[in-house]
């Protein structure tokens, strides 16, 4: 019965979404308050019903109800509870249900917390949000029903992909989707503004919290995904320029540009149509990502043809929303009045440069991701565009970005004094040059680009800290005065400092772990020793171990450094009999200085399993943890910004207005 309640609940949610997509927007254009108000209750209703459906599906997973086809295909009674729960969003249908749930959550968020937004604007925003909901709910119900039933139920389920049975990955899609789909509300704000014909400082401020929330989740989601790839795939890499990664990275790049361009719209009433365009493009890229991942296009253009119904449906949705919004943009954007003027050297110009580089970088990633697909569709040739392309095209752009990012915050609005700014950062430049030279002296042998990247990261870090120090007059005034000033600064300002510093830390982690990585791959027998990055590793052998739904070969590695015992590592190779697949569980000894990373892949020969040779892979990745720490700083910076009191300003004046009268 419970799956059916979930199914019915989805139908009710679709019906409410249809009402919400029509009535409020009509109310906004006719000045009918009752119709406008209906947006709020139906947005809340949607979140209740989609939430109920999601809970119903989750319950089916938790109790292993194999009368639900989705549970059969993605779960197993022996699976650990956490992964049964995560199985809810592990499949195509479940992840789309999560998608729709988050869509509803953001709609309800605006309904609930947007009390400072004019009723007509809010009604339009929620109607546009409901258009997206209608599209995806009908997609869910008509092509990807998560509540498809089987009766009588099969004896047990087919298990979830063992690679996905991991805590990092279990939490990764919800965060990623929160970011992806969170940009939907920003899109809705943009389309509503185009319909209304008004974009101003207030609009930019109303959108800001939602942009920030989506951006933070996306940042966390991408970081978590990269962390998962790092320790689960067994290669020690944290980014592969894989299409699945790229499609989440593109909205992030665009969203970052949007976040910055919206500041100009808020402060200076400028970049209006640009900000709107970025809002549309950011969500369009999220949709594109969903399309590419969900249509099977990635596996092969031909895999798409196997199940064309779903692919075509999303393609239609994609065309309608992207094409429609861009057409609307082309029609209405020229009417938008330009805002404040600025000089070539100014905060505005700096942010413009940021936007241009980020947009170009997004274009590069988009090209590298879609080109193989287009080529395969047109000529049938299969090529892959990998790290060499992205490293050559993307990294230099980022270096330029980082260079200007250091200066940007020093610039004042409208017209900046470049001489003064350069004077302030002179010391920073010298400091980072000295630090880089010192590194070169100590750690020669890395490619030149690595030193350049380290210099860029240090430059960003020092310049950001310097700017912050100037603001609070650190060292120029007594410490107590600085502390008072730090407290007085708006949280958004601290947020920026933290996020920019976070990026510098991320870059240090990236460079350290790739340019200074040491790697050994060897066939080892019990008793063999390997030297790596100053560590001595002794392979003691492999033991069989039994997990809840897998069997494992567990390696045992004793590690010494300079003759003193450090740790023992237990890398595993797990085989899941039900799903008939194997995974590597790397063993990592993590410190701030770097990770010692070990994985065993397979016996080197048939006799190996009986105490013979195994393929052992050992890596030392310096500073790799700075990646996740830096990502954490980025998210924290976003959170600080989000908590800024200014984002709550303009809240209800209703208290001062006449009290509501009874309806009748």
């Amino acid at each position, binding site marked *: 019965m419970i799956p059916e309640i979930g*199914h019915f609940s989805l139908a009710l949610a679709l019906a409410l979404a249809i009402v919400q997509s029509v009535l409020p927007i009509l109310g906004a254009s006719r000045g009918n308050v009752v119709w406008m108000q209906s947006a709020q209750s139906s947005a809340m209703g949607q979140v209740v019903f989609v939430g109920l459906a999601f809970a119903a599906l989750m319950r089916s997973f938790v109790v292993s109800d194999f009368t639900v086809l989705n549970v059969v295909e993605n779960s197993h009674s022996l699976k650990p509870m956490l992964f049964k729960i995560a199985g809810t969003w592990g499949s195509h249908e479940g992840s789309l249900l999560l998608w729709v749930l988050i869509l509803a959550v953001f709609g309800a968020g605006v309904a609930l917390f947007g009390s400072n937004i004019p009723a007509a604007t809010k009604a339009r925003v929620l109607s546009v949000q409901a258009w997206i909901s209608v599209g995806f709910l009908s997609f869910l119900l008509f092509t990807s029903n998560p509540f498809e039933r089987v009766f009588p139920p099969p004896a047990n389920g087919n298990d979830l992909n063992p690679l996905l049975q991991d805590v990092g990955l279990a939490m990764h899609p919800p965060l990623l989707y929160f970011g992806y789909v969170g940009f939907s509300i920003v899109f809705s704000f943009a389309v509503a503004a185009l319909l209304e014909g008004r974009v101003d400082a*207030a609009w930019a401020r109303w959108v800001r919290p939602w942009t920030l929330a989506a951006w933070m989740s996306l940042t966390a989601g991408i970081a978590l995904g990269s962390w998962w790839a790092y320790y689960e795939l067994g290669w020690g890499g944290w980014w592969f320029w894989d299409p699945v990664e790229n499609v989440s990275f593109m909205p992030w790049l665009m969203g970052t540009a949007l976040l910055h361009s919206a500041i100009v719209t808020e402060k200076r009433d400028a970049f209006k149509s640009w900000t709107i365009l970025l809002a549309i493009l950011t969500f369009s890229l999220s949709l594109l990502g969903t399309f590419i991942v969900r249509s099977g296009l990635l596996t092969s253009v031909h895999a798409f043809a196997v199940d064309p119904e779903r692919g075509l449906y999303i393609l239609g949705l994609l065309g309608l929303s992207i094409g429609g919004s861009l057409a609307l943009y082309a029609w209405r954007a020229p009417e938008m009045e330009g805002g404040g003027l600025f000089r070539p050297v100014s905060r505005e110009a700096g942010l413009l440069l940021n936007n241009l580089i980020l947009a170009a970088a997004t274009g590069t990633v988009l090209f590298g991701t879609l080109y193989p697909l287009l080529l395969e569709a047109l000529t049938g040739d299969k090529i892959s565009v990998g790290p060499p392309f992205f490293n050559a095209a993307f990294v230099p752009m980022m270096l330029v970005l980082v260079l200007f990012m250091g200066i940007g915050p020093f610039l004042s609005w409208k017209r900046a004094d470049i001489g003064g700014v350069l004077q302030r950062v002179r010391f920073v430049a010298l400091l980072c040059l000295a630090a880089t030279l010192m590194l070169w002296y100590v750690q020669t042998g890395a490619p030149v680009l690595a030193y350049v990247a380290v210099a860029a990261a240090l430059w960003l870090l020092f310049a950001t800290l310097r700017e912050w120090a100037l603001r609070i007059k650190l060292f120029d005034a007594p410490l107590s005065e600085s502390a008072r000033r730090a407290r007085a600064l708006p949280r958004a300002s601290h947020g920026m400092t933290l996020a920019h510093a976070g990026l510098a830390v991320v870059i240090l982690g990236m460079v350290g772990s790739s340019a200074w990585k040491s790697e050994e791959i060897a066939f080892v027998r019990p008793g063999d020793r390997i030297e790596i990055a100053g560590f001595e590793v002794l392979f003691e052998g492999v033991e069989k171990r039994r997990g809840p739904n897998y069997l494992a070969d567990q390696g045992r590695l004793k590690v010494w450094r300079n003759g003193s015992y450090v740790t023992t590592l237990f890398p595993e190779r797990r085989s899941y009999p039900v799903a008939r697949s194997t995974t590597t569980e790397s063993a990592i000894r993590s410190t701030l200085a770097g990770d010692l990373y070990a994985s065993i892949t397979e016996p080197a020969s048939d006799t190996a399993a009986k105490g013979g040779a195994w393929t052992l892979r050992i890596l030392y990745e310096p500073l790799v943890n700075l990646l996740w720490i830096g990502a954490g700083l980025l998210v924290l910076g976003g959170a600080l910004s989000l908590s800024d009191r200014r984002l709550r300003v303009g809240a209800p004046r209703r208290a001062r207005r006449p009290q509501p009268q009874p309806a009748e």
Partner: protein
Amino acid sequence: MIWGIFAIMAIAGLTIALFPMRRAGMAPVLRADAVPAVLVDQLEEIDRDMARGLVSAPEAEAARQEIRRRMAQVLRRADRQTVTTTGGRGALILAAVFVPVMAFGYYSFAGAPDVPAVAFADRADERADTRRIADLAGQLRERLRADPDGGPTDGWMLLGQTYARMGQFDEAVTAFRTASGRDDAVSATWSMLAEAMIRANDGTVTPDAVTALNRALTLDLSNPAAAFYLAIADAQAGEVGAAHDRLTARLAETPGYQPWMDTYIAQANAFAQTLGRAPIASRAPVARSPSAADVAAAQEMSEGDRAVFIRSMVDRLATRLEDEPDDVNGWLRLANAYGVLQEMDKARDAYLRADALLPEGDARKAEVRASIARLENP
């Protein structure tokens, strides 16, 4: 019960859609209030920045000017639109009624209200049954193995079929292989062996399976299962055209309708689509014997249900044969089915009917006679 819950949910949906009625008459937030609120805050922010020493006095003044200008603009352009706070109830009620109507409308064709939810933990009995069958199969296997004569061929066949039904194809292969090594191995023994091998390999027709299939065809050229899997083997080797030809040729050999033809035609049409050839129409009579879907359904059933299902299938077949007594294959299948149901007399009668119909020289005649002999002298 379930419809009661749906009704409550639908009423909740209706109420949510009607809720704005309660808020009629409330003053909405207008642009003329909301936008200046933000701008006023920006003005105050400039004062705060001054206090922090972040902006100079002239910069601050210029910024203030700009914001004041924007504020004047907003107030000048503020909503002139008149706002009604009460009208439009008709449309709201209509929209609210739409919510449950659409939900029930959709659900009535897409829902499955009669399918119960069954938690894994509540299916202990079913698992006990499965275990019991597994135990019985295990006992049978041990008995056959312990038999100094190697155990009767029929026993091994039963064991193989049981394991195949339980999804343990490796065990099924072992059992069928033993049976196929006997002198009394028939065509079906080899094709069942091949099928078990194929299913054990996730649908890949292995070279061993092809050998077994060819053996099955040597024993009985008309064995439809053998021809079918050989066609699959052709397709897996990339020769879809040959696969299609094989299926259509076999179909052309047998006039009228046989239950195996449904699977044949479906597979042939799948090949035809890849090849761009014309599809074949189904030969199934309207009131037909069990379709592939029925068979699939039977495989999903519990043991008790399956027995009932097989019984009804057999009864249907028997009734049909009363009307069409010349159907040799029908009698053979009926005989086989009675054999499975352990109704030996009826099985023998059916074999006798088939024997009478089979012309001298037919490859199956010997097999049928052997079966009759076995049934008469168990």
